[in-house]
């Protein structure tokens, strides 16, 4: 079994060579199918007729979006059925495999891509396991298929089953959901973009529910790929890594909290179904069984955020929205608590706000105070800035011309005298500023608008050593100490 799957996966990698690969490693069953495949042009009608036998099987495979590699699709359609599918192997064989046959319970079919891909699956692993692998497929761009799948063939089976069941439920309720439910499963990375987006929205809705319930799956999935946190199936983080990242964040957050924030829902009833599903799974966590049913409908109607009312709380939409708002505010207050020093022990919004106000006021006063001091100290700034620039620029490439580029206001003659004075100045004390300048120039100059620096690249190789070497005063200890002595404040 595993061998076949591996072969299958290997085939996935090279879309273009599907046929060739398959022909080489095809088992008898598949070879039987091949002629059928080649002979069968995409016929939704014929496919539809063949679908019913498969509908009984708990197929994850949902209608596939247009642009789609048929081979992958076939995998999922074929293998997802698990034991059921195995029974109907013959039926499958007769199906023109080249098409992305939507094996959903609704028997939806999608247009078929021209490529005919003979799946080489003589057997169907447990649907759950396969679902998970399928999900992994989608998430990976094809390079690490084998690894992932080989990694946990066993683990996937048990937990994924639950997920698949959940998926089935939702699918039955909503065809649209089922369409995108298989999400990435059906989509290879290459075709990911268009359909992913569509699937994402729906996936978002479901991922939360599923992820909450299938926390275990997420856990064990996490090691292998970050993207496939959500158990296998539906929640499936999309194959594109960036989408996966988004999902990942979401799912992790889902696991952490009971309440989940989701993107906009496309259909309220789907949401309701989702919430109900989620609710069924989370029966244990909810404190109040009866109330939750009502809550779900309320939450579903709420639209943007899935919230569960707690026991003893009012469940009308107003109070729910208010509760959401309150939680947002408390979340921000917590973050502010971390920002404002010395506020970790403070509890209570009023006191906290007072502290915040005081802190902001004190910071603003500090800015004023420092600006006053700086204006008083300013006469020396000219010299120090020149010194700084000259030192840094001169050491990097020894050209005074670069200085002019950096500080356009600086009058040229000033540069040279300052350069002579450089060696004797307490250079180490300027290290911090030079650090600032250096980093500024290294990182920011290319991006800054009005900044013409002809020899920008020369600054890049700067590193701490160069600064260290700029220790004019032999008496001074190495600059590192100076740097350490400086307030943590501005070392970048």
């Amino acid at each position, binding site marked *: 079994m595993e061998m076949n799957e591996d072969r299958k996966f290997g085939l996935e990698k090279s879309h273009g060579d599907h046929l060739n690969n398959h022909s080489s490693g095809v088992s008898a069953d598949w070879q039987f199918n091949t002629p059928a495949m080649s002979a069968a042009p995409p016929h939704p009608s014929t496919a539809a007729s063949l679908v019913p036998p498969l509908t009984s099987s708990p197929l994850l495979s949902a209608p596939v979006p247009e642009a789609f590699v048929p081979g992958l699709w076939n995998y999922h359609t074929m293998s997802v059925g698990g034991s059921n599918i195995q029974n109907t192997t013959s039926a499958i064989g007769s199906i023109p495999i080249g098409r992305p046959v939507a094996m959903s319970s609704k028997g939806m079919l999608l247009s078929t891509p021209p490529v005919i891909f003979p799946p080489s699956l003589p057997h169907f692993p447990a649907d759950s396991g396969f679902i998970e692998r399928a999900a992994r497929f989608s998430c990976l761009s094809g390079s690490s298929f084998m690894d992932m799948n080989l990694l946990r063939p066993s683990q996937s089976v048990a937990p994924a089953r639950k997920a698949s069941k959940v998926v089935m439920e939702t699918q039955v309720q909503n065809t649209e959901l089922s369409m995108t439910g298989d999400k990435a499963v059906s989509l290879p990375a290459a075709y990911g973009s268009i359909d992913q987006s569509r699937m994402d929205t729906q996936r978002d809705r479901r991922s939360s529910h599923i992820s909450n319930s299938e926390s275990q799956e997420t856990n064990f999935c996490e090691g292998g790929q970050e993207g496939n946190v959500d158990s296998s199936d539906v929640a499936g983080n999309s194959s594109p890594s960036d989408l996966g990242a988004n999902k990942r964040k979401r799912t992790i957050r889902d696991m952490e909290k009971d309440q989940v924030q989701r993107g906009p829902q496309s259909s309220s009833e789907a949401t309701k179904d989702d919430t109900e599903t989620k609710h069924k799974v989370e029966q244990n966590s909810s404190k109040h069984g009866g109330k939750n049913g009502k809550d779900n409908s309320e939450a579903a109607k709420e639209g943007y955020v899935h919230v569960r009312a707690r026991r003893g709380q009012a469940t009308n939409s107003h109070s729910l929205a208010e509760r959401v708002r309150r939680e947002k505010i408390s979340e921000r207050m917590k973050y502010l608590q971390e920002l404002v020093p010395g506020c970790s022990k403070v509890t209570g919004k009023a006191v906290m706000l007072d502290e915040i106000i005081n802190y902001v006021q004190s910071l603003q006063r500090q*800015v004023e105070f420092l600006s006053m001091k700086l204006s008083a100290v300013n006469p020396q700034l000219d010299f120090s800035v020149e010194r700084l620039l000259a030192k840094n620029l001169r050491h990097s490439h020894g050209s005074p011309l670069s200085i002019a580029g950096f500080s356009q206001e600086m009058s040229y003659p000033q540069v040279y005298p300052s350069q002579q004075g450089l060696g004797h100045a307490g250079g180490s004390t300027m290290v911090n500023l030079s650090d600032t300048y250096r980093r500024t120039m290294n990182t*920011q100059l290319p991006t800054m608008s009005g900044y013409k620096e002809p020899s920008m690249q020369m600054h890049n190789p700067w590193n701490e050593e160069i600064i260290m070497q700029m220790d004019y005063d032999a008496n001074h200890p190495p600059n590192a100490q100076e740097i350490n002595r400086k*307030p943590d404040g501005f070392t970048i």
Partner: protein
Amino acid sequence: MESKSSTTGNRDNPNRNLHGSKTMMASHFLRALFRIQQTSTSSSSAGRSRRIRRAAYASMAYSAGTRRAWSRALLRKLRSRARLRFPRRLSRAATPQRRDMDQAQVLRKLVPGGPSMDDCKLLEETADYIRFLTTQVRLMQTVMDSISS
């Protein structure tokens, strides 16, 4: 900082977000400082300090970009050449009741762009504002130290 984390990323990865802003802030502020020092060698110290303070807020706002409501409001204020007036309220003894009512308003006055925000957004903006403020203060202190020593 230009391509750094999104708004939510601000909260989640403060370090990552602030890194680029720091350098941008530093360079902007230092350049402004230098310019001020060059052009107003003879002007009064008060005028210079006002300009330096303005430069400080400008570099804060520029490094924060337009992602934030407070930085947008600040940039607007700076561009309109309005006098940068900041609330210097004397601490008055206020009854607790009054303080509760005033708190949000007080905060709104402190944070640029405050009046047009709801409470939730206000807290978010305050947090970001505080972060940039502390960075700016530290920058100024560092410049101060390096100049005077």
